[in-house]
C-alpha cells in the first residue's frame, strides 16, 4: 500500500462523508433542529448571574439558612431605626393639606360647614380659630 492509495482513500472518504451529511433523512434533520431549539431555549431561560460586591454580594454568596440568619436581624434593625426616624407626631414640616388632617385628630372638621362655605377652609389653619372651636366644644 503506497501513500498515493492511502491519500486517495482519505479523499474518497471525505467526499462520501460530506455527501452523507447532506443526505441525512428528514426525520433526523428535524430532530436535530428540535434539539437545537431546545438547547437555545435553555440559553434564553438561563438566569443572569451578576457578581455583586459589598454587603449584597457577600449575602448572595452565603447559604440560604445563613442568609436568613443575617437578613432577619438586619431587616428588624432597619425597621426599628426607620420608625424612630419617622415619627409623624413630631413632624413639623407637614404640608398644608396634611395640617388639616393633623387638626382633625383633635377636632373633627365640620365638613358640612366647609361644604356650605360657611367656614372658609383656611380658617382651620388659624390657631386662634381652632382654639375658639375647642373652647366652644368644651362648653
Amino acid at each position, binding site marked *: 500500500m503506497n501513500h498515493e492509495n492511502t491519500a486517495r482513500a482519505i479523499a*474518497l472518504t471525505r467526499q462520501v462523508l460530506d455527501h452523507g451529511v447532506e443526505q441525512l433523512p428528514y426525520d433526523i434533520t428535524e430532530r436535530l433542529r428540535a*434539539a*437545537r431549539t431546545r438547547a437555545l431555549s*435553555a440559553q434564553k431561560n438561563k438566569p443572569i448571574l451578576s457578581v455583586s460586591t459589598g454587603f449584597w454580594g457577600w449575602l448572595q454568596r452565603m447559604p440560604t439558612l445563613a442568609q436568613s440568619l443575617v437578613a432577619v436581624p438586619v431587616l428588624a434593625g432597619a425597621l426599628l431605626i426607620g420608625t424612630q426616624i419617622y415619627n409623624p407626631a413630631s413632624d413639623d414640616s407637614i404640608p398644608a393639606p396634611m395640617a388639616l388632617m393633623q387638626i382633625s385628630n383633635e377636632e373633627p372638621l365640620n365638613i358640612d360647614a366647609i361644604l356650605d362655605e360657611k367656614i372658609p377652609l383656611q380658617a382651620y389653619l388659624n390657631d386662634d380659630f381652632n382654639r375658639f372651636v375647642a373652647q366652644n366644644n368644651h362648653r
Partner: protein
Amino acid sequence: MSDYLVSPAVHQTMDAFLASVERRAYKHAFFAVRNEENALDIVQDAMLSLVQSYSDKPAAEWPMLFTRILQNAVHNHFRRNKVRDYWTPTFSEFDHSSEDEASFDILESLLSRNGDNSIESAESTISREQILGILEELIKNLPARQREAFLLRYWEDYSVTETAQLMGCSEGSVKTHCSRAAHSLADALREKGITS
C-alpha cells in the same frame, strides 16, 4: 478544504453555529454509538452543555469547545452503558474470511445482478449511496481512538496539535491512530474494489 466539525468561520449567533455543526456532530456520534436515538441524545446534550456553560465565551472558541463536549458526551455514554468500543472487532483483527462474511453481501448482490456474469469495476457499479453505506460501516468498525483521530484530522481538518488537544493525547499518538485508520480504510476499499 472541508469544514471543521465546526466551521472556522465565526458565527454571529449560537443558533447559526449549532445549525452549521449539528449534522456532522450527529454523524460523529452515530459512528461511535451506532444507534440513532443515542446519537441524537448525545448531540442534544452537547448542544445544551455548550449553550448553558459556554455561550458567553467568544464565538471563535465554540468550535473546539463543542467538539470537546461532544467527545466527552460520547465517552460518557459508553461509561454509563458499560460498553467499550475496544470490544468490537477491529480492522487489524479481521482475517479476510471473517471480513468476507461480514461485509461482502453488498458487493455479492451487486455482482449477481450482472446477467452476463461479466465483472464490472465496483467503482462504476456501486452508487454513491452504496459507497457511503460501505464506508460508514468501515468507519464504525474502526477502533474508537483511530476513528476519532481519523475523523477529526481528515474529515474536520483539525491540525495534529488540535486533534491531540481534543483527544487528550500526544501528537505522536494522533499520527499513529490516523495512519493506522487511513491504511485500514485504504486496504478495505481496495479489497472491495472501490479503489484500485
